[in-house]
């Protein structure tokens, strides 16, 4: 057994408080009882979210109130309203209770006085996650997004059925919300002003800075006539802006050429210019004699060649235009008749 040091207090002499470690203040019980009772009344009111007791009879007797020594807190219970400790605890309770679930304890029969409750509304309806929103606010934005997601494919289908040529839909070369919009945007599309008003096409990616195509080229233009102009203009724009193959994410399809007279051949127009490069747009390239256009531009200007002369370009179909093998459409079926033999590879 170790010897106690000289300065250490004798535990037998020190009056220990009830579970109150670290408090060296002796507590004479007989005169503090009223204060303890009064504090308990206040704490009970705070715990049950009731108003602080104003009636002195609620927490203590008159005799206790007349004894100034018994006042460890405010002399009258009404003074608890201004007590800083009670005020701070009330603020903490109000902050914690905001949005918290309603307790089932029937001790709490009243709402806390500082909680603002509008008429006709439950103060703490819902769980702690329901802190907000009187309207229980569902976002309307989700419905708008769903609407756009539905309208996009619908417009895609509408536009696809009009049979617009792929060369004119440089739109199809740009990634859009409806990614399939540009794939069939050139399927024998007839000019329909109603369907092509500038802001209705999700894939109406503008040539310049967001301007709808119809607005760029004016309303009333028709696809066949504007095609070569648009193709050239787009090439110029892409060259100027440095855009190129990166914009052409979606596979393209060239318009059917069976019903269209061979207009000015953009390939022939372009071929004297030299190597078009891989970043040139793949426009509609009607070949003389109605042959199918080739897919890959050749480094040297050449007349449009039949698919038999082109190695590896066996994806032509009667109804679909071949695409660039670098950006081949996954859905483009290969026509066995167009496949070249091994000797041409």
């Amino acid at each position: 057994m170790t010897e106690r040091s000289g300065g250490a207090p004798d535990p037998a002499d020190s009056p220990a408080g009830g579970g109150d470690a670290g408090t060296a203040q002796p507590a004479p019980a007989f005169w503090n009882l009223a204060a303890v009772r009064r504090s308990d009344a206040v704490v009970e009111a705070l715990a049950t979210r009731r108003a602080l007791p104003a009636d002195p009879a609620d927490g203590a007797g008159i005799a206790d109130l007349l004894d100034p020594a018994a006042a460890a807190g405010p002399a009258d219970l009404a003074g608890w309203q201004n007590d800083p400790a009670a005020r701070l605890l009330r603020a903490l309770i109000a902050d914690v209770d905001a949005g918290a679930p309603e307790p089932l304890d029937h001790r709490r029969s009243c709402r806390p006085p500082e909680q603002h409750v509008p008429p006709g509304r439950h103060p703490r309806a819902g769980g702690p996650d329901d802190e907000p929103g009187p309207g229980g606010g569902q976002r309307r934005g989700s419905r708008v997004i769903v609407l756009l997601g539905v309208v996009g494919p619908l417009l895609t289908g509408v536009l696809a059925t009009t049979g617009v040529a792929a060369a004119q839909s440089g739109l199809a070369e740009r990634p859009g919300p409806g990614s399939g919009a540009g794939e069939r945007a050139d399927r024998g599309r007839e000019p329909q002003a109603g369907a092509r008003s500038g802001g209705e096409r999700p894939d109406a990616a503008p040539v310049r800075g967001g301007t709808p195509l119809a607005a760029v080229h004016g309303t009333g233009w028709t696809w066949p006539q504007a095609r070569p102009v648009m193709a050239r203009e787009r090439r110029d724009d892409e060259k100027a802006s440095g855009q190129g193959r990166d914009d052409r994410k979606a596979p393209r399809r060239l318009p059917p050429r069976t019903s269209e007279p061979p207009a000015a051949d953009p390939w022939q127009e372009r071929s004297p210019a030299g190597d078009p490069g891989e970043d040139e747009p793949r426009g509609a390239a009607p070949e003389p004699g109605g042959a199918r256009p080739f897919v890959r531009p050749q480094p040297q200007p050449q007349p449009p060649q039949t698919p038999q002369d082109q190695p590896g370009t066996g994806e032509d179909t009667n109804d679909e235009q071949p695409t660039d093998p670098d950006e081949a459409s996954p859905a483009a079926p290969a026509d066995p008749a167009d496949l070249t033999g091994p000797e041409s590879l």
Partner: protein
Amino acid sequence: MTSEARALRTAARPDEGDLGDLTTLAVQGDPGAIEVLLAQVRPMVVRYCRARLGRISGQYHIADDVAQEVCIAVLSALPRYRDMGRPFASFVFGIAAHKIADALRSAVRAAVPTEDLPDGPDDRPGPEETVVRYIEAERARDLLTRLPDHQRELVLLRVVAGLSAEETGNVLGMTAGAVRVAQHRALARLRAMASEESIA
């Protein structure tokens, strides 16, 4: 819900005895008793966690998540719960204390969820009242952190969580009388600290 659970739910004042009866039924697997038990426990746990953890970035989402974890842990532990002479509330708040300690150690700050735009008028207190209340609550938390641990736990359980003196004593291992004396001293200390800050 069994008739016993229904009767316990409509009791005038649920005390530890009722909670113990509910616990017995819940341990036996009565779904109604489990539901009532959690409905009684959850509000106290939410308030306790909010008081202990406070707001993070102005929101109680961390505290509410911890409270949810506590309820899940209580629900998971119910089949294995055995009455060892301690009240069920002490079991619940013991779990809550561990979860809160884990949350305080965690340095992860989750993204703060934002409210949806209300579709109607907002009847809640205005921004001035909200800010004043927030400042007062933060001041109260600051003062509570300066109390001794035992007194702080007592005040949080007694005042914020809303336990009675008997329930608080059961959780902390004290008598109801000792709880009342300790809460009186805690209030006196809080009052003194608040007065000193006001003067300063």
